[in-house]
């Protein structure tokens, strides 16, 4: 009987790929966001509104992750932006090999910003680095103000939080301050924007911040 020291990260294969992507993105001068939320929080609506408001001032592309259908890629493509759909066929998150395949369809050198819309899931995508510069969390107020404390991993890891559907606040029992307080405790450096994709409230500030972040 012998004991063999291992000391290896279980997700090392994914991490190695992510590190390679990150170097490639930096070389090509493209900033990359990994957009994460639960299903129905409004990730694709955020993308549509953001891309429309950017109005071509940044060269963007989108990688869409869904369990099935290419509906989201078609919605994004309708904004005039190249969109590559990944269908995970059941997998609950995107990982390195899926991104590797999607990148082959994109001309990274011509891009300023690549947004990866992850599979709708508040838990699993957080563990899989895709080589992004920053994770962006979307939380809709209809999900409840307890979600950041119940699913802290995403809200701790996200550099930006978009609190969506704030036009519905008068009709529901959601304490927006509780969301802000919890997220501030989890990640004091997080940038927070309260938005409504439906009314457009807050989108101007978010898009202005995004534009300066990409150019900065």
């Amino acid at each position, binding site marked *: 009987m*012998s004991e*063999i*020291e*291992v000391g290896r990260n*279980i*997700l090392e294969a994914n991490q190695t790929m992510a590190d390679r992507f990150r170097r490639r993105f930096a070389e090509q001068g493209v900033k990359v966001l990994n957009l994460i939320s639960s299903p129905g929080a409004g990730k694709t609506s955020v993308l549509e509104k953001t891309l429309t408001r950017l109005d071509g001032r940044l060269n963007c592309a989108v990688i869409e992750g869904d369990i099935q259908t290419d509906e989201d890629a078609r919605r994004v493509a309708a904004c005039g932006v190249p969109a590559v759909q990944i269908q995970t066929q059941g*997998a*609950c998150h995107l990982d390195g090999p899926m991104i590797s395949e999607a990148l082959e369809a994109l001309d990274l050198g011509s891009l300023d910003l690549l947004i990866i819309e992850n599979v709708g899931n508040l838990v699993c995508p*957080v*563990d899989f680095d895709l080589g992004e510069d920053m994770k962006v969390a979307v939380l809709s107020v209809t999900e409840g103000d307890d979600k950041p404390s119940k699913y802290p991993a995403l809200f701790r890891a996200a550099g930006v939080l978009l609190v969506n559907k704030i036009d519905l606040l008068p009709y529901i029992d959601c304490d927006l301050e509780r969301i802000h307080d919890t997220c501030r405790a989890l990640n004091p450096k997080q940038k927070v924007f309260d938005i409504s994709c439906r009314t457009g409230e807050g989108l101007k500030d978010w898009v202005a911040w995004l534009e300066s972040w990409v150019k900065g």
Partner: protein
Amino acid sequence: MHELSIAQSLLGIVLQEAARHGVSRVTKVAVKIGALASVVPSSLTFSFDMIKEGTVAAEAVLEIEQVPAMGVCHACGAEMDMSGLVAACPACGSKDIELSSGQELYVDHIEAE
């Protein structure tokens, strides 16, 4: 929810290490998992036991050590439990605190014959 894909990566590492060291039977696989790693130990064990059949690790017992979520205060150096929400250092009140453990997900060692 993704314990099966984690179990597949884990088994891959175990089989690589077994081959590298020329062992024919792995009896134990010791992993360390942080309390904040979003991995459920019982689900990981279930998935690992399901896929280890027919490999040199077929009889391996998965031993999971859970690493607590701890933080450190950059202002006063105090260590604190980070398993709940911590907005400020309980010792000095500084908000300049950082996770020091709790996100681990690695194979520590294996035992083999």
